[in-house]
């Protein structure tokens, strides 16, 4: 089963990378508002069902993929893949 994990800086956490991206886009003439930069992790997991995969990936996020102090995460499971 395939899954994608999106890791983002939490609201209120300073994101200097996002600020740099925002200012570069503005310099290029794109009048964007706030920009935030996160991380995408594509995974192949051994699980029989979507919920099982999701529970397993949640454990991965809590232990390694995200730091809960500063990052939030979102899991997308692709069941037919």
């Amino acid at each position, binding site marked *: 089963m395939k899954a994608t994990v999106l890791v983002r800086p939490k609201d209120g*956490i*300073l994101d*200097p*990378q996002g600020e*740099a991206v925002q200012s570069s886009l503005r310099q290029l003439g794109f009048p964007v508002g706030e920009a935030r930069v996160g991380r995408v992790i594509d995974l192949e997991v051994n699980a029989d069902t979507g919920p099982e995969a999701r529970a397993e990936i949640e454990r991965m996020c809590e232990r*390694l*993929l995200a*730091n809960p102090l*500063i990052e939030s995460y979102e899991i997308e499971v692709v069941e037919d893949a």
Partner: protein
Amino acid sequence: MKETRPRIGVLVFPGSNDDRDAAWALGALGAEPVLVWHGEEKLPNLDAVVLPGGFSYGDYLRAGAIARFSPAMQAVSAYAAEGGLVLGICNGFQILCEAGLLPGVLRPNTSLRFVCRDVPVVVERADTPFTARCAGGEELVIPVKHGEGCYHVPSDLPAELIALRYVPGENPNGSEDDVAGIVSAEGNVFGLMPHPEHAVDPLLGSGDGALLLASLVDAARERLYARA
């Protein structure tokens, strides 16, 4: 004759690069440094442990995030839980935070640039095993060299755990509250971004780092005597 050189372990991860400097400095200050490979599941007999600077596991994911799961780090966690002295320098500080042995986390510098220069820091806590040779409020000059040294202060961090601060206006990385170093609530785990091992000889710009490392050697020697 009684052995007076305390044994201080220096962990070596793939990507550590200040391990030898740390070992040299500890040796020069009267300790017997013992290099410990990250794959070791058991620590040898030690009076203190140092996690050196560098880029363990390439700083992949987040600095220190992968190193914290190495076998030797499991042993260091157990060692710290028993009251063992653990000092983390730069990448070592990042690993201690990721491992939960110290509160908070270190994030990319707000400038998004690697900084490498001498910085003045103020000793906020002189009553720890890592700062005992300093005076409270004393200013030290110690070099930093890092890309991810911006300390994020957890909302519930007791202020007395902030052991070292950058002098106001000299903060090199955007660290919240100018935090340069943190001590654990129990007082036996300490992490800092500046590199004391690079400041043990005035010939190289500053000898102030020796005050911190010599404090650790003193404390480790007391442990050695207590063990003997």
